[in-house]
């Protein structure tokens, strides 16, 4: 019944600082790539991937999902995935993605 926290691990201050450093670098990269003309064809997926990576880093380390109970991960990731799906469906249905058309 009891869902023990994973291995009793806890991130150190060093881990936090390293994560913050990665977040800063990725943010700088995000801003940098929009000025690189050669990346234009893949710019949207590239930016989405970098954004998702930052999102995951904050959730896993700063919000401790990597170390905490899986129940909490489920409580957050379930709605997150569902909400993302709904957002994609909504933008599609309103014609923003023009997948289904009218």
């Amino acid at each position: 019944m009891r869902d023990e926290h994973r291995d009793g691990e806890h991130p150190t201050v060093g881990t936090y600082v390293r994560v913050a450093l990665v977040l800063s670098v990725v943010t700088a990269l995000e801003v940098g790539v929009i000025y690189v003309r050669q990346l234009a064809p893949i710019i949207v997926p590239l930016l989405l991937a970098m954004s998702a990576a930052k999102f995951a880093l904050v959730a896993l380390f700063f919000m401790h999902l990597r170390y905490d109970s899986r129940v909490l991960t489920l409580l957050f990731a379930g709605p997150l995935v569902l909400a993302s799906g709904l957002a994609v469906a909504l933008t599609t249905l309103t014609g923003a993605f023009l997948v289904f058309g009218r």
Partner: protein
Amino acid sequence: MSAPSSGRVLHGHPSALPGVETTATVLGWLTTVDHKRIGILYGVTGFAFFLLGGLEALLIRLQLAVPHNTVVSAHAFNALFTMHGTTMIFLAIMPFNAAFFNYMVPLLIGARDVAFPRLNALSYWIFLAGGLLLNASLLAGTPPDVGWFGYANLTSKHYAPGPGVDFWILSLQILGVSSVIAAINFIVTILNMRAPGMTMMRMPVFVWMTLVVQFLIALAFPPITVGLIFLMFDRFFGTHFYDVAAGADLHLWQHLFWIFGHPEVYILVLPAFGIVSEVLPTFARKPLFGAPVVIYSGVLIGFFGFGVWSHHMFAAGMGPVADSAFSIATMLISIPTGVKIFNWLATLWGGTIRTTAAFHFAVGLVGLFTIGGLSGIMHASPPVDLQQTDSYFVVAHLHYVLIGGSLFGLFAGAYYWWPKITGRLLGERLGRLQFWVLFAGFNLAFFPQHYLGALGMPRRIYTYPADAGWTAGNFASTIGAFGIGVSVFLFMVNAWRSLRRGAPAPADPWDGRTLEWRTSSPPPAHDFDTIPPVYGRDSYWREKYGPRRGPAAGATPPSSGAAAGIHAAVHLPAPSHWPIVVALGMVLAAVGALTHVSIVLLGVLLTVWGIFRFALEHHRTTAHTDQTGVLGLDHRKMAMWVFLGSECFFFGTLVATYLAYKGRSVVGPEPHQILNIPITTLSTFDLLMSSLLMVLALAAVQRGDHRQARLWLFGTALFGLVFLGFQAYEFTEFVHRGFTLQQNLFGSTFFVLTGLHGTHVAIGVLWLLSLWVLALRGRLGVADAVKVEIAGLYWHFVDVVWIAIFTLVYLIP
């Protein structure tokens, strides 16, 4: 027994625990945090609104009884069906369900209360405030008249200039807050407060359906909240969310409404399914046939419920692919629903049936909901749906679902649990009479409406010509509606007689199967003298009927935690007046929005002050320090994660709207012409670094380093303030350049999305500064680390939302 101000702690041998006296004064009820009393408050208030909604229905039916009738004007008719729909859904059926959640769920899972008793009281008082505000529109002479669905652009200032729609928007927002708070509370309660031995699959089906419904509420209400915020901004501040001339798409409202509206159907009906799943086994003296399948079906219905909303919009012209997708999804959802019907029938098969009033209503649901379900499957086919849309066929369908499903189930629950709640039995003969009158009246009222719809009678018309062929059906329907009224009157008589001189109810009048029958009727304030042991599904039945069906039948006995629960002191939370203060503040702010901005300010101040006092009320109470539940998780931490899940839907809807409207503005500027990426990069970096300071603050609090805790908490708040400063600079700059909320669709979506995020940041800053002040005063110790942790979770979430906004709004071309 002692009674400190923080609560009451009962000591002594469990068998010797006295019933706790609860004050029956008005103040006692106003400040109660007892789940049972709050359940009763929900039930009584819901019933009052139910009578009001019923009266509105009777007026509607009187007007339609004969052709060319003039009982009410066309305008009054519009107001009547709007208020009837809104009242019955939000102020009657939902609170009836909430009454049972509140009263029964802790008893069914072997708990002494919900996870957050004061939050539970807050939910009720906010609900009452919202209900009263909506009905105040009647007293003000300007009730809303746009239908319970409030389709745009009927709700625009142009078509609805009076304050009726404003009453409707504000009260629905308030009711939404109440529902989401309650949902978070019950999710944590059910997951984290079960008695030892009560595994998830041993939980009663009613508790399971409650859990599914709470997730639906927590996730489906944010989209409608966002839709209502857009509408509020359109009406109050001149934005363009539903302004076709500015490039907006009116379907947006329909999508947002039905993303909420279809799960709402399951929010209304699943609790009734849960009740029936308890009533039928009890009166058939058999276990529920295939209980796990009934549970999985409920979960699947909840899940699929999010994927079928556009079947309400087949007539809107979404295109063949979308129509096909939603058609298939709608047909799929009928499978788990049908499964339940067969499980209930199989439960009855071969049972030793006792035909009590509760049983009558439960069986009534099985039959009548099946009819409503079948007509629902018909709507899954777009060509058929196109013929039925906006006809009386749909009115018939939805009433077979919401009366045949919800109301019959709720009456089954009322007859079943009344003895437990009041300690007295209802009259069985009168109950059965009520059932038959309701059954006949309901079918007479709504079955002919299928034919009226098929004959082409549109819904929402206030009169009709004599030669349309609709006269007989309408007359019959009106007679039936009064039959329903008579049945409700019979219930009131029965309830009155029971309360006055009803036979006393024993603890277990129906030979029940679940834990609520293990305690007295009504239960003591602490619910159970000892935490009940749980041996398996239908644990109390196993406990009563010997070892063959008891623990020896392979059920796992309760863990040692049970013993700990039995001998632990019983802590009962103290009454609190802060919930009612917060609710008062909220309704005052809403009234201010309808009258004068100074009253808004007063309301907001009262709300914020109330929340502060609410939060600090038990800051030093040691009994509140450890809130670890059966999952080994702190209640507050779980609640925050559930809230953040709900917030995903809130911001997901906002971002989706921004994307849906991107490039649709009919006038400039466009995003690339005005957004300042270098400045925003700096503010993004600032917010990311604030998250680093937040985790450092938490680590400092956890190790008891007060100096560092103060430093990092203040640092986080300061970085938050800097972010807000950047945002204020950006907004001011835009306004100076003529880019405002009202400029174009981009302005409306941009300012509302980033402004609401900024509001979240501001709330976070206020929260962090409060913790910092506590730390300065030496009142933030290691034991308070979880309080910093949940503030941190909120803060990091605000951060991740900005990560998404930065990419989607600023960077993606």
